[in-house]
């Protein structure tokens, strides 16, 4: 494995390649850096429901099969809800891409090591759950290339990257109804207030 990457660099590479894709950012530093890389109206920022970024992304993907949907979560969050990989492998939505930001620790609660630090391998877990198109991204260019390939292909994909413990460089407003409303407007399923 090459040197660990920085989450904000990966989020900037991601945002630079996006158009109208929906992106669901998991709790804590994951969605902080997604926001810091440049807010998009198609971003949904999760606040408390640890482990549910991928299930939420699956729901959006089912509701909008014509749109590409990306879920992003950290290693600690995904470990809380590994079963969702099996559900996604079973449902196999063509338009869903999963990104794992793996710093092998619970960074936001003080950096306690996660099971990833002692060997839990998210690409192996995802493949074992039926998500065949699962890969480690060893550097920023590989990450950007794998994201592009996943967005251009049919079938669910998972891309994991080993990241370092750099602090997130920004945070979205913690205003859930606004986050939800603006996201739904961007999805085209809700109107601007007063415009009906």
């Amino acid at each position, binding site marked *: 494995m090459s040197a660990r990457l920085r989450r904000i660099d990966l989020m900037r590479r991601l945002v630079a390649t996006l158009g109208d894709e929906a992106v*669901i950012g998991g709790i804590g530093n994951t969605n902080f850096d997604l926001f810091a890389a440049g807010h998009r109206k198609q971003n949904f920022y999760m606040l408390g429901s640890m482990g549910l970024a991928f*299930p939420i992304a699956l729901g959006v993907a089912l509701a909008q099969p014509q749109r590409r949907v990306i879920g992003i979560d950290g290693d600690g969050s995904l470990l809380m809800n590994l079963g969702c990989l099996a559900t996604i492998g079973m449902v196999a939505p063509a338009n869903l891409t999963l990104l794992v930001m793996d710093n092998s620790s619970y960074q936001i609660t003080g950096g306690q090591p996660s099971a990833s630090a002692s060997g839990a391998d998210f690409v192996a877990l995802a493949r074992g759950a039926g998500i065949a198109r699962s890969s480690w991204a060893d550097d920023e260019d590989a990450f950007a290339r794998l994201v592009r390939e996943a967005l251009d292909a049919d079938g669910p994909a998972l891309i994991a990257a080993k990241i370092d413990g750099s602090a997130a460089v920004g945070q979205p407003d913690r205003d859930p109804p606004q986050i*939800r409303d603006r996201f739904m407007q961007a999805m085209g399923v809700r109107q601007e207030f007063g415009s009906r």
Partner: protein
Amino acid sequence: MPSASTERWSDVVLATLKANDVRLVTYVPDKILIPLIEGAHADPFFTAFSATREEEALGICAGAWLGGMRSVLMMQTSGFGNVPNALASLAVAYQIPVVLLISERGSLGEFNVGQVWSSRVVEPVCYALGVPHHVIERAADVGFILDRTIKQAWATQQPAALVLSPLLTGGKVFAA
């Protein structure tokens, strides 16, 4: 709205879901829910599948709503115990209407002590979170309560929980 009392409760549930354009059915399996699960899988109107845990299914239903698709989440009372954090921090906090359909275990002849206390958390959790909560006991009430609960949830952008009593479903009895 279907209401004929001669219809099976499960047929009324499925017809009411369809009438309200509820196309996504997620669930963690339960024996009492079999007619709903099998009925949803058999009808191409529905997209139906199981989730590994109830809060995972809640996340899927919440995402579906964000994308403009209506859903229902089915579980048994013990499974509701997996839901409170997702209900509080996602559905309630973000004002996302997720409708929970919960088959009641733990009462009226329960044979498994492991089901008894977990079933008692549903009502207090719903009260604590301000989630509308009704127990359906009579077949004649199924269509009205479900239809109105779905419509209120969408209109007010709040989750809701419905409990299917053994008085309605017959419950699950010990097979000696």
